[in-house]
């Protein structure tokens, strides 16, 4: 059956070429990067807070994580 399907598919005119839109899915990757940055550096800030007994490092960590992930998004998707 797969041979018949492959014949029928390739008769539809479009040649089998390379990827046509490889840039899609960047939106989801961006959300992943932002989440990772927030969670990782926010988590690091939170652990630092627990170690030192302060309350401020978690916010510092979150802001640093957001900034770093925005920088990473710019590196990967913002320049061509």
């Amino acid at each position, binding site marked *: *059956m797969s041979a*018949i*399907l492959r014949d*029928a*598919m390739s008769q*539809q005119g*479009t040649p*089998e070429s*390379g*990827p*046509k*839109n*490889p840039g*899609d*899915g960047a939106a*989801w*990757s961006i*959300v*992943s*990067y932002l*989440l*990772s*940055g927030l*969670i*990782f*550096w926010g988590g690091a800030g939170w652990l630092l807070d627990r170690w030192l007994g302060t309350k401020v490092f978690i916010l510092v960590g979150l802001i*640093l*994580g957001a900034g*770093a*992930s925005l*920088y*990473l998004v710019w*590196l*990967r998707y913002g320049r061509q």
Partner: protein
Amino acid sequence: MNVAGAGFEPPSSADFIFSPFIGQSAYLTKPIALVFLSVLFISIFFIVAAKKAAIVPSRLQFAGESLYGFVRNDLGRDIIGPEFIRFVPFLFTMFTFVLVNNIFGIVPFLQFPTMSRFSFPVVLSVLTFVVFHATAIKHKGLGGYLKEIMFMPGVPKLVYIILTPMELMTFFFTRPVTLAVRLFANMFAGHLLLLVFILGGDHLLHGAIGLKLVSPFAFTIGIALTFFEFLVQCLQAYIFTLLTALYIAGALSDEH
């Protein structure tokens, strides 16, 4: 919700827990039965659709071929590129499995999207994780792959301390987790919405006369939400498979 008087319990996550049909084993519940039913349905549909494969297709064969062609072309060839054909069975199985299980959320008498139990999307996401990392490692070698993830070109060396843990975390943790959670949360929220409006409408129907007049609105919104849920279910199946294909394409790509 308390306007309807005492006795209305808003649907909660307890509505997603089913007791077994027979006996005590947790493997004989409604979601498990629905998953087996979906596999049976998909297998029978595609076996029958491909049975008498003619050049001029019958309607059933056309439906089966359209679905297969959509996954093979739009999700396989256009995204993965030259080596796509060996991933098409995986992508196709995943797409039809998620689609049929999602649509069970609005089919009468079944009415439970099995992907709203968290363990099902987790398994699918773990499968994607294994496939995409194994492909990348086979293609680039373990050292090369890790080097490519961790060290982006064009960045001053000191910034690597900040960026590398985030990249690693994205590839090994955030991507699979968001893949599973996206599917789960959409199906869970959709099912809960439908429960609220339809059960609420039913409760209003049995209330005082003023409430009885309001209940058709609840049912109308329930019907509209059912159509909306159908759209979301198909879309979520598509997005899950699209992201799987994109991750595989990223694993196979040679440049950055």
